[in-house]
């Protein structure tokens, strides 16, 4: 995502075929949104004439990148729209965007008061207040904060990691650290079972996905620099690579950082890998942990950004290796949350309408669980359906007798 450097010229290849527009989840439910073709490549040609041609409707784009997946001409449609917002748009500070996007800050602030915060954000009074004053939709469920952060739990197992000959570093991200430390724990279980030790980065900052989505580009860039340095150090200290269990964080670190920071740190960014790709390669090389049958029927939902970063095949590959698992690939549909997009009051209806076909398929499928790689997809599906959502790594861990 060429956010801060030279203009992307891929729009020149657009054939006006409308494949992007017909796969845009927002255009499908929000007829006033002109769609990715008009906002992206069409709009860019006009904006080259004058910035006066920038449309406010660009704000409805969720950045899900399904347009780029659909495009037969490799036009970086979603990036063009994101760039246009920055290049031609005006920067305005808004409290809601600040709160929603500073996930690491919010996580740190709630430390030690998780129960209280969870209760508060669950109460109707607070939801009403957030709705009215901040424009965060009251119908939205907030992810619960964990009592103990992942980093603090990790201290208990840190010592034990040194016994493994192979070492990799884990970029846990805000979600695992503050909301879902158990996923991080599952990862340690799985990798340890494969004779690989897990290290953490000395310190990490939010990858920057929510910052970019909410217009805090300078901040995102400084996070990118910080995290790149931390990854660099980890590699120097003997980690084979850096893995992430979040498809969004991994996409940001691997695909978007090089565009933001230039190619000089290419070698660092190349070593940042989404976990299922790492595991899929290990499995193929024969390093496969022993697993007992997991007799479950699961539906796999492929997150938009994982599709875009070519990761779906790897997740399916490792899920296929779990004995006893009845695996169904769900139709490729966006869940509608799109990170922080769905939290905003003006987007709530759109967000839920986008997700409806997915929710319907999930409810009709008689699944035991839904599996997906992305934390915000998980939030959205759990809020909007009756099913619980597992991460692929958690399923693997379930197969390793740790059980749930």
């Amino acid at each position, binding site marked *: 995502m060429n956010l801060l450097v030279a203009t992307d*010229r891929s*729009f*020149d*290849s*657009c*054939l*006006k*075929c*409308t494949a992007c527009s017909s796969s845009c989840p927002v255009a499908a439910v929000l007829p006033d949104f*002109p769609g990715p*073709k*008009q906002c992206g490549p*069409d*709009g*860019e*040609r*006009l904006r*080259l*004439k*004058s910035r*006066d*041609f*920038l*449309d*406010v*409707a660009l704000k409805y784009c969720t950045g899900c990148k399904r347009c780029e997946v659909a495009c037969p*001409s490799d036009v970086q449609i979603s990036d063009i729209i994101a760039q246009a917002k920055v290049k031609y748009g005006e920067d305005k500070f808004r409290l809601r965007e600040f709160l929603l996007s500073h996930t690491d800050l919010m996580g740190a602030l709630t430390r030690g008061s998780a129960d209280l915060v969870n209760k508060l954000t669950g109460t109707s009074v607070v939801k009403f207040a957030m709705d009215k004053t901040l424009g965060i939709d009251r119908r939205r469920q907030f992810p619960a904060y964990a009592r103990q952060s992942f980093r603090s739990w990790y201290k208990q197992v840190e010592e034990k990691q040194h016994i493994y000959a192979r070492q990799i570093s884990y970029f846990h991200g805000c979600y695992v650290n503050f909301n879902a430390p158990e996923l991080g724990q599952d990862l340690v279980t799985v990798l340890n079972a494969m004779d690989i030790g897990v290290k953490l980065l000395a310190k990490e900052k939010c990858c920057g996905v929510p910052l970019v989505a909410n217009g805090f580009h300078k901040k995102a860039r400084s996070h990118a620099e910080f995290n790149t340095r931390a990854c660099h150090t980890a590699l120097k200290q003997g980690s084979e690579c850096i893995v992430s269990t979040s498809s969004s964080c991994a996409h940001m670190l691997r695909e978007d950082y090089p565009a933001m920071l230039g190619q000089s740190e290419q070698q660092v960014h190349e070593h940042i890998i989404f976990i299922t790709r790492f595991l899929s390669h290990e499995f193929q090389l024969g390093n496969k942990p022993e697993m007992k049958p997991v007799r479950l029927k699961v539906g796999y939902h492929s997150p938009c950004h994982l599709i875009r970063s070519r990761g779906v095949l790897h997740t399916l590959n490792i899920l296929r290796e779990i004995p006893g698992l009845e695996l169904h690939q769900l139709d490729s549909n966006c869940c509608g949350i799109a990170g922080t997009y769905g939290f905003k009051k003006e987007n709530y209806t759109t967000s839920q309408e986008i997700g409806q076909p997915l929710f319907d398929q999930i409810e009709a499928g008689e699944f035991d669980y839904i599996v997906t790689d992305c934390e915000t997809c998980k939030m959205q599906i759990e809020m909007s359906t009756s099913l619980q959502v597992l991460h692929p790594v958690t399923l693997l861990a379930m197969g390793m007798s740790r059980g749930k």
Partner: protein
Amino acid sequence: MRRMEADVVVIGGGATGASVFRDCSLRGMQAILVERGDIASGTTGRNHGLLHSGARYAVTDSHSARECISENKILKQIAGHCVEATDGLFISLPEDGLDFQQQFMQGCADAGIHAQELSPKQALQLEPAVNPALIGAVRIPDGTIDPFRLTSATILDAREHGGALLNYNRAEGLLIEQGRVQGVRCRDLRNGEQFEIRCQAVVNASGAWCHEIMEYADLSVDMYHSRGALLIMGHRMNGMVINRCRKPGDADILVPGDTVSVIGTTSTHVGRDELETLEVTADEVKTLLQEGSKLAPSMLDARILRAYCGVRPLVAESSSGGDRSISRGLVAIDHGEQDGLPGLVTITGGKLMTCRLMAEVATDKVARLLNISVPCETASRPLPGAHLPEPIGRKMRQGQSRYRLPDSSLPNSIAGSAVYRHGDRARSFMQEDDHHNNAVVCECEVVTRGEILYAIETLNARSMSDLRRRTRVGMGPCQGEMCACRVAGLLASQQENGDEVLGSLQDFVNERWKGIRPVLWGDALRESEFSYWVQESLLGLSSLQPEGKAEDNRDLYHEL
């Protein structure tokens, strides 16, 4: 036979004819314009779209240079919505050296053209698309001009002052009685009907075809037809005009125009029998790309939309030296004075830039014939739509915008495109809550239903290609693959004759193809394959057989 009356008949609906039409009308004459095709469908619509500063002629033709800079200033004042004052650069590359630049600066100074010498770094900062290998640059007040829009607005003004436009009507003969020209014999090409227009003066403004009109009176002129090929790039690659600072040669100018950039041109002589069948050759495309990429290297991997060529109607003054040494100056002939045949004035030579001036000279001659003493007002009176907040292109103060409808909350792309093309006349077809008419028909160029209907009702557009010239519909990257049928549908809803609409749709599609064929590779081929699927496989356009599709109504040429 039907008979009409007028003070003046103007033959030829290019920029020059349109300007004569306007000038006559503004001076109170009852004028009729006769054009065998559509307005601006000849040479006018097939050039760079360069708003010359005159710098191009500063060294070789000081007279033309002075004409240009004077008309340049006038057009910026009277045709704000047809021009963009982008400014231009004359760059010197290592192979050119800097000697010519010195002559060039002197030439500009002599002609009164403001020229500012820039360092290569300054030039690159102003225009990032420019070849970074440049060794010097001069900034001059070049700009861009849309010839279709200029012609259309000029004609609209004439019509609003009592003139009548007869497009798709051919002048087939001059009525010569008692030793003077007394009218024109015409044919309506839609229905074949012949008719006469009686008048006191005829102005032959048929440009590259002016010898044909003169032949009706057994007169002749030594025309030199110089053909130039150009390429249209898929997007606006450069913000400023980029010229080579050297003696005029092939592909030495890249002009940003609206949403595209145009590279041109070549120059070869063509015989008068070849005027109707012009095609761009593979060699011309190659030359244009090779030389053009020296101006802006990014051209090599940019998409080319189409190729086209036009014919400059030059009047030969000497037989030596090739066409670039022939003056671009205008030629105005009162055949009463020159050939003893009063009532006929021929205006030719010249260039798009000087169309208004040419018209002034010609109309002065007509006014003398008619004993009219009203002075020419065309240099000071703005064209319809030209009232914009400030001249287009100048840097706006922050928060201000040129291309917006006042007090409108319509999307900027929609309102802005309408204002960009029609200036303050955009209000004629764009109202705040009119969802129906504000719907976008052509997505590449953001043309709305309202704009199409306005062009049909107010701007005399009758065919699909007319609509393209009035609105840019079908001129974007998809070349009408999506919008062609939508526009045809709108035409069909406005016209009784469905066959005529279908014929015009087929012509439109075939005309677009002519320009694409010379550059049929890469994305252009992919686009064509897709268009073919849509128009032939999905819609079956070739199997439609509209009746009465007269061959000579077809668009003969491919254009911008």
